[in-house]
């Protein structure tokens, strides 16, 4: 049975400086939760508090309903994979995997069995006698994960585990970690600053900024219904376009155009549209701007257009397929009112678009 985690008003302060400001969060048994946010948002600190590597300043940490604030790291039933891998350079891969079990004074035969099993899962059996310096980045990463697996923990924690790998390997390891979660079914928490990793791996994404949770939920819920400007801009790539707007007679005024979304837009100051929800020139949806094309990127499967509105606001447009868009030309941009987002002066989403 997988393990649940509950954070109740968790706070962290270093001296007078508070970095985590009362976080409430419930992680269901077996859930793959991703903490995501920009540098310094407190995501790693939060993870390290759950791990027991940082003392908790205030609030309660519950694992399976039991308060764990003062329980030492080793007794929380967790294993952690570090960004730097933290492999012991003077020990063979086998010794690295066995270290925790030897510390727990497990019989040698059982250690060998567990190491063998983990090595099989991660396909690192031929590497067991090597030293970490003889391994590639991807292999080291596997060993680091293996060190977590052998302990058969209740909870896996990952602290930006893929950020030292090259792009191709990162995608491959991402898939493997997701598979590992499917196979083992453990509760896992994964920290990253990469929203693509978050979107692809998570059952639940927790978006953090400056020590508070901006929004937590399923990846597509965050994509479809971002609660505020920050989440709207952080989730999705390329990021959502924001146009300053004013309201007249329940109609949005964006520079030169008037846009009617067919719903109440009172108080809107920002119109948000995802690049993939904009079309040009084909007349579907509502026209919201005439734009001048600055740059076109042909990716083959998609065409990315960088443009500027008549009143100088920049706009990114993602078009499906290979499209012939001339540099410097003026094109008409259309949006689907059901997929437009509006935000008030505080940056809070006014009403979720209906789908």
């Amino acid at each position, binding site marked *: 049975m997988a393990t649940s985690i509950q954070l109740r008003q968790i706070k962290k302060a270093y001296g007078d400086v508070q970095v985590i400001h009362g976080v409430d969060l419930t992680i269901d048994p077996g859930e793959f939760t991703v903490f995501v946010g920009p540098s310094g948002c407190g995501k790693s600190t939060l993870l390290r508090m759950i791990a027991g590597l940082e003392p908790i300043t205030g609030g309660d940490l519950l694992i399976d309903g039991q308060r764990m604030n003062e329980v030492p790291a*080793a007794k929380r039933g967790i294993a*952690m994979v570090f960004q730097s891998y933290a492999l012991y*350079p*003077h020990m063979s891969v086998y010794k690295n995997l066995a270290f*925790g079990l030897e*510390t727990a004074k497990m019989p040698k035969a059982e250690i060998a069995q567990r190491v063998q099993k983990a090595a099989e899962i991660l396909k690192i059996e031929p590497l067991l006698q090597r030293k970490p310096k003889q391994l590639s980045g991807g292999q080291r990463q596997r060993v680091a994960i293996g060190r977590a697996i052998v*302990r058969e923990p209740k909870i896996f924690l990952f602290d930006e585990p893929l950020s030292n790998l090259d792009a191709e390997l990162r995608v491959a390891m991402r898939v493997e970690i997701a598979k590992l979660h499917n196979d083992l079914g453990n509760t896992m928490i994964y920290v990253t600053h990469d929203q693509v990793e978050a979107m692809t791996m998570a059952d639940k994404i927790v978006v953090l900024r400056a020590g508070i949770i901006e929004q937590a939920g399923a990846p597509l819920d965050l994509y479809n219904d971002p609660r505020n400007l920050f989440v709207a801009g952080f989730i999705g790539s390329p990021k959502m376009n924001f146009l300053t707007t004013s309201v007249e007679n329940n109609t949005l005024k964006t520079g030169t155009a008037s846009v009617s979304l067919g719903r109440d837009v009172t108080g809107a100051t920002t119109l948000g549209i995802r690049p993939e929800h904009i079309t040009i020139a084909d007349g579907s949806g509502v026209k919201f701007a005439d734009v001048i094309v600055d740059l076109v990127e042909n990716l083959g499967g998609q065409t990315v257009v960088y443009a500027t509105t008549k009143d100088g606001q920049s706009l990114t447009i993602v078009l499906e397929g290979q499209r012939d868009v001339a540099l410097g030309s003026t094109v008409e941009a259309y949006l689907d009112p059901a997929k437009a987002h509006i935000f008030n002066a505080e940056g809070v989403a006014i009403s979720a678009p209906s789908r």
Partner: protein
Amino acid sequence: MTVHAADAAPQDAASGTSKWSRAWQSHAPGYLFLLPWFIGFFGLTIGPIISSFYLSFTDFDLLTSPDWVGFANYERMFTNDRTFATSMRVTFTFVLFSVPLKLAFALAIAILLNRGMKGLPLYRAVFYLPSLLGASVAIAILWRQIFAGDGLVNQFLSIFGIVGPSWISNPNYSLWTLIVLSVWQFGSPMIIFLAGLRQIPQDMYEAASLDGASKWRQFWKITLPLLTPVVFFNAIIQTIEAFKSFTPAFIISNGTGSPINSTLFYTLYLYNEAFSYFRMGYASALAWFLLLLIACFTAFSFLTSKYWVHYDD
């Protein structure tokens, strides 16, 4: 290419001398600045080393010219000189105890300081101070006062009603006062240990503590293995220093190695042979044997190092 080479050849020949003089002009200041060192190195170091090698095969009293005696000096050392054997025993005892004790003490203090305490730079400087002063004559004199029969140590012991011996004039203890003095000069290995400890990534300890490893296990399984390159360096340097140690024994025993030769360091014996008895030939042989001894020890250490020193890359 051939055309270019043919064109260039006469030019090269013409510019040959000017190239050299230009090089000299641009490098001359550098060599001039090096000149004092060159004079010192060749005149005061290499020169005497070579001539001492020659002298080690002679009988030389400084007044008459050296007489060639072949291997007689070396023969005497191993067959007919009990003081030589004594001085070897004293020196080996000193090296064997002072080096490990000093390194252990230096490492212990470095680990304490590495815990990130307030005022670390101050403590670091204070602990380093004995290393700066340690080899000086003044400190040796001070040490003599502290461990003398009516010295500080015995005054302190008398508070508890203990009558201490005269540490430096009792042959059972005299060498130990020198070992303690040497351990007290733990500052320089400590500084190096401290730098080495700083190199060990914090997340290794975090990973180990998640694995449930106690501080004690972390020290033996992580800190010490990862510190072995530094331990190795410190051990080599300190052992060489210990073999060469001279001043404290000279001062504390008034240059005699007394009582009953219990502090007769090899270097002290060598010094006496040379400058008290003017047996320069024999002293030269002693010096060369010490050099050979240190070289062998160092070579041996390097040979064994691959079995116990863990280099990261």
